[in-house]
């Protein structure tokens, strides 16, 4: 039907929903997954704050989402979110960042947030390329890819961002592709409830810039189908040899650790301790 009716997620937007992303961009699917997760949890949107950086991913919440949104400098979203969360621990702070944001310019903040186990939900949109600036190689671009800055093929091995997060101490880590939108939505809901640093990596299609690299230019559908074919759940992948999973995308929820103390609660503990020491 062509009749215009309001989208069920419209209530989460500041105005009419109008993403200026390229046709077929994964951002919109991820935006829906975030909002559906919040809808599923039936939580008050006013109690959420979104922090985002520079790059296409930064525009998922800013200025669209109808709650507090802080759109900051490239790579620093986690650092701003850390200050915000420490100052207002009662709100849920969600960071959306790209792969370059997370692992190149913001790599330092990323690993330290994992280590600190601060209660942030990090949504990492991994399109494996610098989309907004014109398709340059990223730390997540597959080995030997030809990009606008690696005309001979990239000579650096990529990061496995989820594994970086796990090694750095994140207490909830999951990876999905945009093809697993439903699983993604569930994992985001879980991450929002998780009391600690949660990292959700989403392999997302950039049909315009990354599409060029793999010869599927401007074809979001082919990229999604490629994700469908190559995705393998972590439970299955564990039973296979490294060679068998070489070209696969290992997806699923990797870890969930509820035992590690969370940073803002540690701060509260220190305050009590400090006051009682003063009184002695």
């Amino acid at each position, binding site marked *: *039907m*062509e009749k*215009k*009716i309001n989208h069920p997620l419209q209530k989460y937007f500041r105005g009419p*929903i109008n*993403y200026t992303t*390229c*046709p*077929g961009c994964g951002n919109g699917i991820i935006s829906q997954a975030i909002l559906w997760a919040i809808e599923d949890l039936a939580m008050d949107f006013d109690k959420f704050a979104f922090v985002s950086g520079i790059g296409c991913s930064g525009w998922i919440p800013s200025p669209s989402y109808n709650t507090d949104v802080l759109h900051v400098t490239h790579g620093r979203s986690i650092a701003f979110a850390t200050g915000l969360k420490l100052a207002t621990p009662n709100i849920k702070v969600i960071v959306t960042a790209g792969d370059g944001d997370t692992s190149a310019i913001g790599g330092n903040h990323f690993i330290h947030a994992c280590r600190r186990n601060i209660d942030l939900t990090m949504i990492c949109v991994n399109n494996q390329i610098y989309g907004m600036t014109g398709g340059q190689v990223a730390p997540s671009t597959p080995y030997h890819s030809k990009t606008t800055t690696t005309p001979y093929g990239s000579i650096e091995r990529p990061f496995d961002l989820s594994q970086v997060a796990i090694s750095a101490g994140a207490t909830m880590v999951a990876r999905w592709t945009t093809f697993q939108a439903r699983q993604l939505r569930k994992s985001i809901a879980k991450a929002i409830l998780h009391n600690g640093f949660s990292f959700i990596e989403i392999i997302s299609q950039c049909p315009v810039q990354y599409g060029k690299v793999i010869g599927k230019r401007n074809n979001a*559908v082919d990229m999604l189908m490629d994700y469908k074919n190559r995705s393998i759940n972590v439970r299955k992948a564990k039973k296979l040899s490294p060679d068998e999973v070489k070209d696969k995308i290992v997806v699923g929820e990797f870890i969930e650790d509820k035992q590690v103390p969370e940073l803002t609660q540690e701060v509260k503990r220190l305050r009590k301790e400090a006051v009682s020491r003063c009184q002695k």
Partner: protein
Amino acid sequence: MVYIDKEACKGCGICISVCPKNILAFTKDLNQKGVPYPKMIDEDKCTLCENCMIYCPDFAVVVKKDDK
């Protein structure tokens, strides 16, 4: 019922590809952006699975149970 906001559509075709019943197809018309948009071709087969809605990057598809 599947509602498609044709002017919000950018013509990526994802909804068509994720429809388990293959009942969405591009129209021959173009919207104001100059791209073809999807159309429901066999409403009766629709299971209201919502795939077309949740995969649409442009929030252009709404799936709603009929109020009839």
